């Protein structure tokens, strides 16, 4: 179970002049949940989008299952087994719930997930599969976005800001599914602004601050003070002692 599936080494990504990700290295092992936490603008989403193939790194490597994937397009990476649930859900707005899942399943890999299996995972979906996705609530849309990524049968699922704009109860319900997904042999890399949520679900936590790695460790080994310092930076932390909320 300790086999490395996704390996990121010395990765830097620039948006024009701005260095969004600066020399970040980490690896994701098979069956593991890694939470990437950090404040707004820390470079988490950029990192995830680079792994999915939507941004080109300025230096460093991304390898999957021992193979360098730096030159592959996003759709080729899906075929390899890397699926991203993008920030803001990004559903196909002119389509029904089921059509969104069908698009995800069209070039799917072999694996445990298919559309009926998704309807089991989210039991409300089957009855509403003919509805347009814009009629769904934010939480429901998020669930469809996860389903659309799962039907491709990824080995690595990248989840970008699942909790954004959702009520706490809805977030809890969505996170409750994470162990079930991992049980199917999927490894998960979560980007979260909501530290408590990320720390609760993850095997390991990786904190980014202004594009750089500021802390790495298992949730049990880290104190809240350490996480605060890594999240806000040393000075901020002493100015706002042990304030766990962000913004």
């Amino acid at each position, binding site marked *: 179970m300790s086999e490395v599936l996704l390996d990121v080494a010395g990765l830097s990504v620039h948006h024009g002049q701005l260095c969004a990700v600066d020399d970040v290295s980490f690896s994701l092992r098979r069956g593991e949940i890694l939470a990437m936490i950090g404040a707004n603008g820390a470079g988490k989403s950029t990192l995830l989008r680079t792994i999915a193939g939507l941004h080109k790194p300025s230096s460093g490597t991304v390898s999957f299952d021992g193979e360098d994937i730096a030159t592959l397009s996003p759709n080729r990476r899906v075929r390899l087994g890397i699926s991203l649930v993008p920030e803001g859900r990004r559903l196909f707005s002119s389509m029904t719930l089921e059509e969104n899942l069908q698009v995800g399943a*069209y070039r799917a890999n072999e694996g445990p997930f298919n559309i009926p299996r998704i309807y089991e995972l989210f039991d409300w979906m089957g009855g509403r599969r003919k509805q347009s996705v814009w009629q769904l609530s934010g939480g429901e849309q998020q669930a469809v976005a996860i389903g*659309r990524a799962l039907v491709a049968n990824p080995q690595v699922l990248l989840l970008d800001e699942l909790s954004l704009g959702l009520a706490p109860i809805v977030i809890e319900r969505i996170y409750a599914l994470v162990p079930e997904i991992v049980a199917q042999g999927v490894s998960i890399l979560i980007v979260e602004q909501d530290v408590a949520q990320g720390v609760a679900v993850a095997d390991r936590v990786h904190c980014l601050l202004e594009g750089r790695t500021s802390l790495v460790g298992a949730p049990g080994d880290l104190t809240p003070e350490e996480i605060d310092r890594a999240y806000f930076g040393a000075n901020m932390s002493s100015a706002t002692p042990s304030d766990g909320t962000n913004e």
Partner: protein
Amino acid sequence: MIWLNVVIQGVLIGGFYALFACGLSLMFGVLKVINLAHGDMAVVAGYVAVFLTPHLHIPEVWSFLVVVPIFGLLGYVVQRTLIQKSIDRDPFTTLLVTFGLSVVIENLLLEIYTANGQTVNVGTLITRSWHPTSNVYVSYVSLGVLGVAVAVLGILQLFLSRTGTGRLIRAVADDREAAQLSGANYRHIFGIAAAIAFATVALAGIAYGMTTQFAPTSGGVNLLFAFEAVVIGGIGSLWGTLIGGVALGVAQQFGAHFNPEYQILAGNVLFLVVLAIRPQGLFGRKTALS
């Protein structure tokens, strides 16, 4: 009864406008490219039907059987090379490139085939018509074009809603990046959309040649009508394009009934009124994810 004939003639010409416009609508909806050479591609298809297919000993009426597949292939190739290259630069480049293509095509046709008008020869069929009452004339060729337009739009609608590839085309149109993340190679999907657009405009070009004369510069005015049909109907709606084409055709025929000079004016006025009152078009969507 005179008014009935005006409406019928408008509907018949509207079918042609819709056939002409659906490829333009598809290119814009999926690729976000406004193909300014769209009208010229139709004219090229007309010239191919008139001058090249006779070499294959195919009657001009049946030329579409050869020309349409060729244009489909041409659409895919032009998209994957010229148009994709300009999309990769920036959206404005696509306007320049397709405008340049339009100029090149018109001048090449003038150089090779002169400015003389041409028609696709359909024999005596062109003169035959059905007239149920003394004031109503329905040309068989125009009726056939309307039938083809409805059939093409219907098949296209089914293709987009029922097949996997069709769904991918809609997915790319909705959100290109999200479609990539679902495993779609958007460049290939763009190519398929362009192939369909070129194939339908080839059909429209041949239909145009059957009903009236065309010359190397006929593309421009038809492109304008196609734009108007798409905008009136609403971008992204195929049946909307048919209704838009018919509305434009009927408006033009009403204008022409009062004074032949008003034909194009009446169509343009309808277009401007729709644009002012309902900018998304009669069947356009103004929805967004919350």
